[in-house]
Structures are given as C-alpha cells and as structure tokens.
C-alpha cells in the first residue's frame, strides 16, 4: 500500500509482496532441502537434521559442517565454520540497513534472523524500486523456511534408511553445492588471486595441520589476499 512512501513501514501488503516474489525460489529450494536431508540423514537423525534446518536455516553453512560431522563432534570448528560461511550476511545486512533505519531496531534485528541470500536479493531489488517495507523480507522467509525444513526432514528419513553416502555420490553433491556457489558468486578478475590464495592456504593446512584448521586458514588467506591486491 505504501510502496511509494519514502518513510519505512512494516505492512501486510509488504509481506504478501515478498511472498509472491519468492515463489520461484521456494520451488527451487525444495531439491536442495531434500539433498541436504539425504546427505545429513546418513550422519545424524532426522530430528537433528530437521532441527538444524529450522534453527540455523542456512544451506551453505549446513552443507559445510557435514564433512566435519564425525564423533566426537568438533563443536568449536562447527560453530566457527558456520560463522565463516555466513560472514557474507554481514555485508548483505549492511546494504539493507539504510532502508529500515527509521523502524524500531528490535523489529529489524528479529526479522534479519531469517535473511537468506535469495531473501536479501529480492528485498534489495524491491527497496531499489522505491519500497521501504520490512514486510518484504519477512515474506521471503515465510516462503523459504517451511520448504527448507520440510525438505530436510523428508530427505533425512530417506537418507537414514541405510543409505551408503559415497556409493550414491553424496560427497560429490556436498562439494558440488560449493562449486556452483563459487561460480555463481564470481564477480570478475579481482576474485582470482584471493581464490588461489584460499586454495593454497587450505592445501598447506591440510598437509601440515591436524583437524579442521583448513577452513579458517583458507578463509583468512582469501580475505587477506583480497586486501593486499590493488584495486582494479
């Protein structure tokens, strides 16, 4: 209703708009939810997998921890990995902040908790067209969360029925999710050097360090290389 108004709002119309815009993404989230569930179901119970999807609600981070999900669970490594994989959200939230700055802080901080990559992209595009409605972001969450959680549980029940993960290529599925993300996130030649640094740092860490240090070292190597190289 107030889509053209310059002052920020939080309306039902905004929620509805966000939901409609997210429909195509929620359809494509289903196979990813099923795939995550199937891969996770081989390692943990469907209840644990479903709870993770419900509370963490972040596909990339959830896929990332699967390769470390072996007893005894490396708690610190799992939490740090979730933070590192999701660190991009900090930048994404910062870009949306100006549009919602006039709204009560607790509304924004509450709804931000469900911001996905797709939800952020849809919301930012809608804001750039003149809307200031926080409901749009909530709408993107309403359309994705049930699909992701439901897909996970169904996939996990299938995956827990004695599925041999390697035989079905589920390890390639997990690595493939990240391969497609890297290609999708590629922005140009300035990404090449940080990418090489990340791969080299990871290889060195895998060869000479125990445990899961390679994720932190690969991430830091990429981040630092991004700072060192000169601006294009």
């Amino acid at each position: 209703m107030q889509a053209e108004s310059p002052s920020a709002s939080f309306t039902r119309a905004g929620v509805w708009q966000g939901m409609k815009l997210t429909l195509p993404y929620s359809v494509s989230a289903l196979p990813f939810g099923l795939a995550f569930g199937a891969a996770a179901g081989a390692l943990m119970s469907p209840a644990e997998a479903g709870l993770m999807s419900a509370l963490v609600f972040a596909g990339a981070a959830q896929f990332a921890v699967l390769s470390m999900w072996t007893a005894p669970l490396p708690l610190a490594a799992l939490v740090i990995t979730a933070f590192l994989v999701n660190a991009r959200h900090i930048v994404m939230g910062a870009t949306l902040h100006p549009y919602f700055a006039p709204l009560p802080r607790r509304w924004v901080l509450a709804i931000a908790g469900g911001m996905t990559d797709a939800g952020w992209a849809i919301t930012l595009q809608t804001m750039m067209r003149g809307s200031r409605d926080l409901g749009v972001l909530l709408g993107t969450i309403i359309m994705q969360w049930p699909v992701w959680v439901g897909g996970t549980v169904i996939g996990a029940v299938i995956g827990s029925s004695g599925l041999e993960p390697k035989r079905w290529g589920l390890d390639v599925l997990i690595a493939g999710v990240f391969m497609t993300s890297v290609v999708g996130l590629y922005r140009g030649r300035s990404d090449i050097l940080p990418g090489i640094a990340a791969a080299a740092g990871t290889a060195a860490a895998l060869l000479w360090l125990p445990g899961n240090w390679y994720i932190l070292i690969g991430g830091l190597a990429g981040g630092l290389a991004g700072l060192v190289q000169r601006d294009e």
Partner: protein
Amino acid sequence: MSELLALDMTALAAVIGMAVATYVTRAGGFWLMGHITLTPRIERFLRNMANGVLIAIITAAAMRGDVAMWIGLAAVLAVMLLFRRSMTAILIGMAIAAALRQLLV
C-alpha cells in the same frame, strides 16, 4: 521410530552454537551500521573470506577424494559454467561419480 527422533546432546549444542553464530552474521550488518560504517576494505575482506571458505571446502574435498570425486567435481564445474543451472550441475556430477564408483569397485 526412536532412531528417527534421536537427539544427541552434543549435536543439540552444535546446532544451537551454529544457530547463534549464523544469527550474529545476519543481524550483524544491521547492528554494525548503527554504530560504525562498513568501509570498502572491510567489505572486501569479508567477501573474499566468505569465498575463501567455500574454496577451502572444495579443495579439501578434492584432496581427500578419489578419482570419482575429481571427475564428478570437474563435471559440476563444466555444466555450471556452460548452463548456469546449479541443481542440474550438481546432480550430473553426483550421478557421474556414483556411476564411476559402481564400475570401479
């Protein structure tokens, strides 16, 4: 049925820890902007670090993987570069790896 609903306390702690870490990143950008400005340098560091983590996971999978993993990943990359369809690329890579493992065993 009880197996489906099994909830290990360590797993629960891991899930909650991951959820908190993820929330910090999601709310962090909104929160920080009220206090400091995110400089282009910090933004570039965060972006390249996030990409670096994704590349770290791929590198580890490749270094620890077998021939089927290598060929499967190459197929994912090729299909993704050609058609930009992530789910298609992933499923093709997975199917190739699964087929190779059937043949090689």
